[in-house]
């Protein structure tokens, strides 16, 4: 599904290299987790995949289902099936959540040459998906993320993911700022989307999210590279003894 080869990324002003030869392969149907200490480049990876400005790729390649991702604009990446659940979802005053969701869904459909979704069908769909995430009508009517609590913002990200049905989902520290109940809701939302033709990349600091979203593979990222990969037990090891042991091991 997602193939990252020898990816080198620096800040656009050339001041600082962040990713230093990252390799990662996430096959369809799987859930991969990336863990790593602060500053290892996890969020940069998420942003670079989604196409945020401010970074320069100096080497390497990224492909999504065989398509070169790096040459696409962010909206084309989304239409190609990529979705990033933001660590800090953005507030957009004056744009209602409903208008946002419908505009996004129809923009993607249009880009893929599919017919736009009609108002009744859209309403039915959004109500159904929102209900599962405990998102009420008021939250749908309000401006995107404005005045939302931390938990509401994260649930809103998962609602967008559920509506857009992407093929490759990247979750950037979706567990940060969540209480146990909210985390369970978010995890349920993610698990409901698990499918043979869909893959997940879950970026997290903590093992606890991975109790709810069981990963197939766990990667440890340090200083812009994957330094170790393993099964779910790797996350437990991090939880118990921190990154120090692993760092020593790979040094």
């Amino acid at each position, binding site marked *: 599904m997602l193939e990252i080869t020898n990816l080198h990324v620096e800040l656009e002003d050339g001041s600082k290299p962040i990713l230093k030869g990252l390799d990662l392969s996430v096959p369809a149907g799987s859930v991969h987790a990336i863990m790593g200490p602060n500053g290892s480049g996890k969020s940069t990876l998420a942003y670079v995949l*989604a*196409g*945020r*400005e401010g970074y320069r790729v100096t080497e390497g390649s990224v492909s999504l289902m065989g398509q070169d991702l790096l040459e696409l*604009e*962010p*909206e084309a*990446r*989304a*239409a190609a099936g990529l*979705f*990033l659940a*933001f660590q800090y*979802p*953005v507030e*957009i*005053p*004056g*744009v209602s959540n409903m*208008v*946002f969701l419908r*505009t*996004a*869904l129809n*923009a*993607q459909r249009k*880009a893929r040459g599919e017919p736009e979704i009609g108002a009744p069908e859209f309403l039915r769909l959004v109500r159904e998906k929102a209900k599962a995430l405990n998102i009420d009508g008021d939250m749908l009517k309000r*401006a995107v993320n404005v005045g939302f609590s931390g938990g509401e913002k994260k649930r809103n990200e998962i609602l*967008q993911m559920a509506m*857009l049905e992407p093929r490759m989902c990247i979750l950037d520290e979706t567990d940060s700022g969540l209480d146990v109940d909210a985390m369970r809701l978010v995890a349920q939302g993610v698990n409901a989307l698990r499918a043979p033709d869909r893959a997940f990349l879950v970026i997290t600091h903590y093992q606890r999210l991975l109790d709810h979203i069981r990963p197939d593979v766990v990667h440890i990222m340090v200083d812009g590279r994957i330094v170790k990969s393993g099964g779910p037990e790797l996350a437990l090891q991090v939880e118990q003894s921190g990154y120090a042991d692993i760092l020593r091991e790979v040094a």
Partner: protein
Amino acid sequence: MAEAARRQEGAAALLAAHPAPAGEAGWAREAREAARARLLAMGVPAPRDEYWRFTDPAGLIRPSPQDAALLTPDEKPVFGDFDRLQLVFVDGVFSPELSDPPEMTGLVIQRLDEVLATDIHWARDLFGQLESRGQEPVARPFAALNTACAATGVVIRATGPTPKPVSLRYLHRSTSSDALIRHLVRVDPGASLTLMESGPAAARLNLCMEVEIGAGGRLDHVRAQGRDHERQAITHAFVRLGQGSVYKSFTLTMNGRLTRNEQLVELTGPGASAHVAGACVGDGDFHHDDTVLVIHDAPGCESRQVFKKVLRNGATGVFQGKILVRPDAQNTDGYQLSQGLMLDEDSQFLAKPELEIHADDVKCSHGSTVGGVDETALFYLTSRGIARNEAENLLILAFLDEPLAEIADERYAEDLRTRLQRWLARRR
């Protein structure tokens, strides 16, 4: 004193270009004469004047206007879908043929020329009166010119609740038309009225409105100033509010080489409320100026100014807004917001927000900002598959929504929103 002479010559030339109408009643003639004298005494503005620092008055001073090309209509008229009483002006001249019969319950509508030829005491108390009071603290010579010379307009008196809006539609049919339009509006105590205005009116428009709202009365004023690119306009609204009355005004401006909208709102009765809002979008040869003075002259009144401008390709937006709180106006609640959204580095937004407070128990705040489209929000929207242009338009409409939300009737706001969407779609 070459400067003073030049100002007077300019005023005299404008007066000569617009002969005062004949056949009016004595009181009207006196009001006209007094306005002439006021204008000659103050003269026309000079670009150095503080009050005209951001807007060059040259296009308004020249005796005849610069030509303005006509826009071929490519969409339904603004407010065209709503049940309303429509009065039509063609290049500033009232057209009975194109207008609805001026009859409606709760309302008396007359032509300005009829009223000025007879003796109607309330009109007499209004015509030229609010304008002359409004010459302090700053001169508004083009309003004096309007009092001295404007021959057409309507005189509207709301005597009770009115079942549907009155819509004044201004058609622009001649590339060289120079229109002076004067309206008088009185809302009796407890009465209410929605007044719509739409269209460019002329190559150059000088429109002045004097409005008196009685105790407990309400006027909703919604206007859209037309899309003709080369037109120029100066408008004045002088509004006086009585106890517990409400004035809500919204103006949408799209295009136009020069637009200056001056509003002077006086809250003279306790508990009155005035909201003055505006949204404009300009591309290229576009200069738009909102000059607003809200005077709190009674206790417990509330006022709100919300003005937003979207500018690109060298367009200019100006905001001069002031809240003046007189000593007796305790418990005033005043608010003022002006914001410019710049779509490139060639455009400019010039703001002069002012508060002048002479009472000690008041709540007044103002804010003014200028900036570009929020790149973080733009990335968020595009990351969901929305194309950059579309995402930008979504953010622009969101930016303009605050003044649009000041329109009480959501249907009218929605009509204007679709105009803005189309305007944005055309600029690609």
